Structure formats: C-alpha cells, structure tokens
C-alpha cells in the first residue's frame, strides 16, 4: 500500500471515502496486470447477481457498500476484494444467504482445501 495523506479526507464533507478527485495522492499508478482467475470470478459473480435475470441488487448498491468502508479499510483493500466483500455484505443485507449459511460454507471449503494440502487462512474477513 503506498503511503498516502489519509487525514486529508477527514476535512471533506460527508462520508465519501472514495471521492478523492483533486486530493494529493501522488501520481496515478498506470501499471496494468492480467486479470487472475479469482478476479474474473468475482466479476462474473457480480454480473450474475446484478444482472436483469437475478436482480439481487444493483451495481449502485455495490458502490454504496464499497464506499461505506472506513478509510483505512478502503485504502488497504485491493479492488476485487472490495467487490467480493461488498457482494457478501449485500447477500446478507438482502437476506439471500444467512450469516450461518455463509460461515458453514466457508468452513467446509477451508476443510476441503486443507485436506488437499493447501494452507488456508481462517481469519475472519471484515
């Protein structure tokens, strides 16, 4: 995470962690990378959930949820991680899945990956 003048946003009106246009964050990082499988999956999940067929929520709700993050969390979270966390929060908010169902599924996936010999983090994701 690049060093940033984060306290500058405390002076801006409203709760707008994302609205940084014109603030001094140094040069724009123009480096591109190929999308990982994980990133493509997050994107696909969003398209399926927000598309006209399922309409679980609109992309506007995703933006609102991402922009509700506290400053530190917003800055410290990679782009697609913000998306998948917001998708999770919206699935709970819209009562499409319950927290218990989500926890159970995550635990079972962790168990399976560990059985395959992978190292798994069980730290709760904010």
């Amino acid at each position: 995470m690049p060093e940033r003048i984060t306290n500058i946003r405390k002076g801006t009106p409203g709760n707008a962690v994302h609205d940084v246009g014109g603030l001094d964050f140094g040069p724009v990082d123009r480096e591109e990378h190929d999308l990982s499988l994980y990133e493509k999956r997050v994107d696909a999940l969003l398209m399926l959930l927000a598309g006209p067929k399922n309409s679980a929520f609109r992309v506007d709700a995703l933006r609102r949820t991402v922009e509700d993050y506290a400053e530190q969390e917003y800055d410290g979270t990679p782009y697609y991680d913000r998306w998948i966390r917001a998708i999770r929060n919206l699935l709970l908010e819209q009562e499409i899945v319950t927290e218990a169902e989500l926890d159970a599924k995550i635990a079972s996936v962790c168990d399976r990956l560990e059985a395959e010999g992978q190292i798994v983090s069980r730290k709760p994701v904010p």
Partner: protein
Amino acid sequence: MSTPFEKDIATDGPLFSVGERVRVDDRRSLGHCRTPFYLRGKEGEVIAIEGPFRDPEKLAYHKPGLPAAYLYRVRFKQDEMWHGYDGSARDRLEADLFEPWLQKASESDIKGGA
C-alpha cells in the same frame, strides 16, 4: 424480485438544454451520491443530454430509482476547477451529472468571457 432496467421509464422532458450554463449544487449528500466534491459549486456547460436513468441515489438502497432523473454531460474549464492549474487554458473536463444536482447558472454567476 425483479427490477426492470432502463426501459419504460416515463419522465417529463429534460430541464436543461445543450449549450446551457449550469451550476453544480454545493450541498452535502445525505447518502449514496455520484456527484464528486471537486465539482460542487462549479459552473459548466451542458454538452449532451444522455437521457433519463433510474436514480442511483435510490437504486443504491434497493429502491426502484423512480422518478427517473435526466443525466447530462457537462463540460468544465480545468483552470476554473483547480487552484494554480498550470495546464493549458483550453483544457476541459467532462462529467456526467444528474439533474437534481444542477441549477441554471444565474446571470450574476456567469463570469465575463467564461
């Protein structure tokens, strides 16, 4: 739970026309909002009417987003936007803004030669 997309949204016509000078409201948003802070209170020219869209400020909270709001493309002068702007005086910035955030620029707002 089906939310229709950008079809069949009836509205009155747009309030502003292409070429008209408008001022962005300098107010706080009470919730989700797509109008950036750096444009609030700034004056620009409508260069396109993008059409009516469901209101993102309502869609963000799972509401239908109606009545729909007109979206405009507004052009601003960069050197009126930033203190100490050292780029060309001809530099412009274009932003898509919803009608509830725009007012007609009053005569007294319009600077000579702007």
